[in-house]
């Protein structure tokens, strides 16, 4: 059994971090400095942190989409 303590430094598993940053976190309304299209690009970009584009396309379809507030 490995209970791994997540440290602040470089050794946090990148895939776990990106998984969380894409799927989680509160969005504040009025967060209007970037357009929705730009924010979407950032989320695609965060997936690119982990893998080349062709892999990412598949995983985008499988994963949760970011929650939004605009509707």
């Amino acid at each position, binding site marked *: 059994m490995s209970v791994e303590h997540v440290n602040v430094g470089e050794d946090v598993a990148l895939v776990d971090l990106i998984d969380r940053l894409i799927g989680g976190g509160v969005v504040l309304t009025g967060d209007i400095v970037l357009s929705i299209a*730009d924010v979407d690009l950032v989320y695609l970009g965060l997936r690119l942190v982990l893998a080349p584009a062709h892999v990412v396309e598949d995983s985008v379809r499988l994963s949760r989409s970011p929650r939004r507030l605009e509707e």
Partner: protein
Amino acid sequence: MSAAEGTVVHAYGLIADRPTLSLPEGVDGAPVRIARAGDVSVLVSELRAEAYGPEVWRDHAEDPRWLEHVARQHHAVLQAMVEQTDVLPLRLPGIHPDIATLEDVLRDQEAPLTRALDTVRGHVELGAKVFLVDERSTPEAEQRPTSGRDYLARRSAEATNREEARLRRQNLVLDAHESMAHASTHAVANPPQDSALSGRTEPMLLNAAYLVPRERLDDFVALAEQIHEGLAADGMTLEVSGPWPPYNFAATPDDMKVGQDG
């Protein structure tokens, strides 16, 4: 116009209480400070607009190295906080023109944000993943089949065994998730990570997160150890990570409204 010309405000997360905190360094070593609106406090850094303004985010939206750099530093601040106090992570890109504008946003959404903070108060997130590390092939074999019929019968029996083993594992994983969910306040099962992304070749059978009360962390880990030993007999392994800032349990104000009204 910005209060300080040429700067933007990067918001990391919200905290409810303000005990004496040791504030870490923020993005690129910028100081982290606490801005406050009503009962809600937010951890922020003022950053140079030419380094982290909207145009720069736009330009780097598909730049993995730049995003990783920001993501790691954003996380580092939240991780340093969760080790000291309860924190509600904010989603990237969390940039605002200035502190006053951000404080207005917080005041406008004080009620749902306070509810969201209440959800995670006294809790941290633990991650749990189950991998299939040893998919045992059926031990028989070696004897040459005596006929075509014999060969087909064996193949069929092997397929049945494999399917039974798969179903058995599935049930064990569901039981494991249920036990850990029971030991936590909230639980979420996320899609397993693609092995191309995780770099792990073993199939991932569970990718879950649990919101665990701080005072029950040891109990949860003891339970996980027990589950891990149970799963090992069927070639599976359980890996627990944390404590994480509660990314998976940071609901948006709108989600909260839906929850409240529904």
